[in-house]
């Protein structure tokens, strides 16, 4: 804790279902515009849940990010989202693109994913099974290896520090931010492009549909489907996209006169060991509380200083448990509870990308002085209302200037990540 270097955020990029660049995303988050839509393909394939959060952009836009060689045979949606978000964040930070022959030794990439290049992999499977392995071409490996996303970004930027891909299910994005924080705080790097991405499509979402954990009664009302904290929450809406944050030492940011979005005070990642109620798919509440408490302690703040929480809150029955865990961990409830919101009401659950996309939204709230409203939770779950006062869960966006926001993500495998962001003044 002594001599910890201060770490800040100097660039943002996002490809979300409700906005494929930061300015539209910010507007739509503020205005409560949902990015969830009916997906014809899911209907054709007999999915129970035929809706999803899917980023929409013109294919031509890819020419601004990939060269003609990289575009040939590109069939990896997560790669597209990650490269767009990552390069946008870098541009936003005003860091130069390295066109020299010397790698940027102090700049790295930590960009996570759950699975990459599923559609490319499907292509390959068909060719291999037909005995045509020699027809795969050179891009099957680079588009389907998990680290393809960090490799693409690292090469485009010429980074010479750590270039890696982390993976911890739905906590991946938040974990990436904390890995970047740790490395910079330790003095091993000055700048890291951190974030996460997730493929879209039936092969990604099918497994969740099969688990019967997605809502199936909203195929005709897509924007009403994702209902975090609501009494009528009936499962998470699958999503996809990417979020990216340029994370930088305060020294380096000040030296080059960068715009600073927010400071990262600290955080924690842990696991419940799939013990005491924790399992492959459910969290050990003790571990969640422990993770939050450790994050707060690491950030060097009092739990009472937290103005708002951006929860994991996926719109399942686990939402009430999450709220209880926050209450117990922070020792705050009722009227004393911080404001809390879930971006998933607007974009669905973007899986491995959720932590980074939601962190972008969280940082925007600090920078732009608002707390976005939760749509679809007018009918607050009674178990949640027992713990937290109704007005702490805004259904409309508040013009309120938060100083500190806690953001947490939880993932399959009983893994947790919690990061503490602070307004930078």
């Amino acid at each position, binding site marked *: 804790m002594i001599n910890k270097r201060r770490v800040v955020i100097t660039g943002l990029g996002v490809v979300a279902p409700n906005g494929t660049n930061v300015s539209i995303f910010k507007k739509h988050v503020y205005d409560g515009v949902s990015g969830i839509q009916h997906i014809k393909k899911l209907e054709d394939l007999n999915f129970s849940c035929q809706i999803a959060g899917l980023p929409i952009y013109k294919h031509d836009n890819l020419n601004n990010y990939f060269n003609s060689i990289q575009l040939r045979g590109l069939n990896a949606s997560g790669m597209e989202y990650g490269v767009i978000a990552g390069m946008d964040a870098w541009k936003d930070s005003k860091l130069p693109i390295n066109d020299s022959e010397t790698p940027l030794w102090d700049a790295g990439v930590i960009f996570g994913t759950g699975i990459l290049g599923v559609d490319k992999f499907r292509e390959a499977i068909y060719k291999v099974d037909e005995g045509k392995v020699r*027809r795969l071409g050179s891009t099957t490996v680079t588009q389907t290896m998990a680290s393809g996303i960090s490799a693409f970004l690292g090469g485009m930027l010429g980074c010479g520090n750590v270039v890696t891909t982390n993976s911890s299910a739905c906590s991946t994005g938040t974990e990436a931010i904390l890995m970047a924080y740790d490395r910079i705080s330790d003095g091993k790097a000055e700048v890291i492009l951190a974030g996460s991405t997730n493929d879209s499509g039936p092969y990604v979402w099918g497994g969740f549909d099969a688990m019967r954990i997605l809502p199936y009664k909203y195929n005709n009302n897509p924007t009403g489907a994702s209902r975090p904290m609501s009494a009528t929450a009936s499962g998470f809406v699958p999503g996809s996209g990417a979020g990216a944050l340029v994370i930088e030492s305060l020294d380096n940011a000040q030296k080059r006169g960068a715009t600073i979005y927010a400071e990262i005070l600290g955080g924690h990642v842990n696991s419940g060991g799939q013990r005491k109620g924790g399992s492959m798919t459910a969290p050990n509440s003790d571990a969640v509380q422990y993770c939050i408490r450790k994050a707060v302690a690491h950030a060097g703040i009092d739990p009472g200083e937290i103005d708002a929480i951006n929860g994991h809150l996926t719109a399942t029955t686990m939402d009430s448990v999450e709220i209880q865990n926050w209450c117990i961990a922070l020792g705050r409830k009722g009227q004393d509870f911080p404001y809390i919101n879930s971006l998933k009401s607007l974009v669905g659950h973007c899986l491995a990308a959720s932590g980074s996309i939601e962190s972008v939204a969280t940082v925007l709230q600090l920078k732009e002085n608002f707390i976005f409203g939760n749509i679809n939770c007018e009918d607050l779950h009674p178990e949640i209302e027992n713990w937290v006062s109704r007005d702490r869960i805004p259904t409309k966006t508040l013009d309120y200037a938060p100083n500190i926001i806690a953001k947490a993500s939880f993932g399959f495998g009983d893994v947790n990540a919690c990061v503490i962001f602070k307004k930078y003044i």
Partner: protein
Amino acid sequence: MTKEELLSKLKTIITPYVQNEEGLTTLTENTDFIKDLEINSANLVDVVLDVEDEFDIEIDNESMEKMLTVKASIAVIEDKLASK
């Protein structure tokens, strides 16, 4: 197919992979894909697949290994076309 036609088709195929555009303007039979055009060696397999599609031929591993220059590539393509 004349040699000129063949060369022109080959040029079209390799163009997207070329990183040294200058080498393309001075393309001759002796042009080396990696040294002169700076085609990434990993992309050579993609060039070969595109050649297979364009000429409707199949190029075995041994022939493929020879296709490092314009001249060698034309020789392989002509050979495969002849044995079609």
